[in-house]
């Protein structure tokens, strides 16, 4: 059953809970129905994490989501441990991680399944983010660009949410191509925040959008750093006129 018409958040969740332990619907193909959701293995059955994505299982999960989009609710959180992940947790923004690539594929499958129903797609994407951990949220943000034509502006609030965090991994993930939909003021603040929290600007898509107002903001930021005797990040310097000039612009 598709939950797209379900406006009530609690009712929506109740439905999710009942799906957590049920195998995929028979319509999704027999080959996928045995794929674990990460709760069945006993101590003796466990295997090592795949550091290279298990493409066969991933293909099966994508097919399953295309047939029954709500399956993404249980597949998305389990994707890292069941399909593949880069070991460890890193505080580095923009680091390439196997599980991000896996989850992007699942999101693409969801987009394909709900291509004709952008509101349903939006609800599903919002719930993946709302109930996701930091890794899942990062993947949702990274995936917005690839479903942009389908979802339009509907997920822009997720970008705003991520930009309110102080987690540089989320801030970086929020500033892909989809962030071009931010208005000028929000986009400038986002770039400035990158300088503050240490997100390299090479991770920001469409930096050519930088205008005089952003350059003024960065110049003020650089002046404040210098006044405090602190170093100005190289990324900030790249926005400024030649170093010998004053940082003020009229």
């Amino acid at each position, binding site marked *: 059953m598709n939950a797209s018409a379900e406006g009530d958040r609690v009712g929506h969740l109740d439905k999710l809970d009942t799906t957590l332990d049920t195998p995929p619907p028979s319509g999704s193909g027999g080959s996928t129905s045995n794929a674990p959701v990460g709760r069945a293995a006993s101590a003796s059955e466990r295997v090592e994490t795949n550091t290279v994505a298990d493409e066969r299982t991933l293909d099966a999960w994508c097919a399953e989501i295309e047939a029954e989009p709500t399956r993404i609710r249980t597949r998305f959180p389990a994707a890292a*441990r069941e399909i593949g992940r880069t*070991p460890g947790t890193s505080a580095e923004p923009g680091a390439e991680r196997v599980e991000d690539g896996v989850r992007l594929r699942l999101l693409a499958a969801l987009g394909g399944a709900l291509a004709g129903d952008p509101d349903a797609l939006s609800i599903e994407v919002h719930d993946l983010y709302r109930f996701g*951990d930091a*890794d899942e*949220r990062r993947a949702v943000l990274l995936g917005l660009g690839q479903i942009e034509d389908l979802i339009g502006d509907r997920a822009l609030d997720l970008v705003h949410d991520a930009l309110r965090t102080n987690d540089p991994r989320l801030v970086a993930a929020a500033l892909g191509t989809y962030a071009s939909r931010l208005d000028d003021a929000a986009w400038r603040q986002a770039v400035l925040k990158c300088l503050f929290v240490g997100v390299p600007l090479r991770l920001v898509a469409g930096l050519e959008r930088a205008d005089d107002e952003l350059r003024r903001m960065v110049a003020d930021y650089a002046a404040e750093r210098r006044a405090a005797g602190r170093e100005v990040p190289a990324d900030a310097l790249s926005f400024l006129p030649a170093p010998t000039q004053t940082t003020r612009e009229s």
Partner: protein
Amino acid sequence: MRIFDPHIHMSSRTTDDYEAMAAAGVQALVEPAFWLGQPRTSVDSFVDYFDALVGWERFRASQFGIAHHCTIALNPKEANDPRCTPVLDLLPRYLAKDGVVAVGEVGFDSMTEDEEKAFSRQLELAREFALPALVHTPHRDKLAGTRRTLDLVEAAGMEPGMVLVDHLNEMTVDVVDEAGAWMGFSIYPDTKMDPDRMVAILQRRGLDRVLVNSAADWGKSDPLRTRATGEAMLAAGFTEDDVDRVLWRNPVEFFGQSGRLLLDVPETGQGDTFAGNSLLRGERA
């Protein structure tokens, strides 16, 4: 000395604590879901808290090279508030996540009927999600509460090896030991248990199924009590391998049963000492 603190409430600690813990050898920890000092009055407060446990707090810890895990549950205190109990219906969302290594803290605070109902329901969830359970034992009427806890665990059909009964002391350790469950000890500056008493218990009954934690939280507590206990063990004649077993391999073995550990331990020079499996390198158990 490498340390896995199996019970510490980092949400109530500062970044200075993270720094000191990393310097003392803490490389991994488990933060059990509990109350916030000030009682919650709505389910939404739980959701934001759980989000922090699987999001922000994990990030904070990663900045200090510490692998942060958590357990998720409705705690015993707040199980008594009908405004909070509907959170039970949201738990499955979180129990499916990487890094969520047990259902907990569950158990008793004042031994009420409502507490028992929430406790039993969450033991069912632990079985359903193949997760271990982390059980808090009450501050008041501790021995009776511990016995009742073990009865409920048995009634729920949980394997004792999947259950950690925490905050034990000299009066409660033996009943838990006899039941075959894991024994947790919270080493505090003043109350509960101190390093020397902990060493005496280890000398008496050995190292099997024993976990030592700092349980540092909002109260007077010290996130380095795990390290102090390791040093007290060495001073009492235990070997470095004994200390490694209690402070690292035991918690990895217990929580590894979840299949959800996110360990990525830097080179320690100790190699693969845990049964030759990949746990030390941080993959799924």
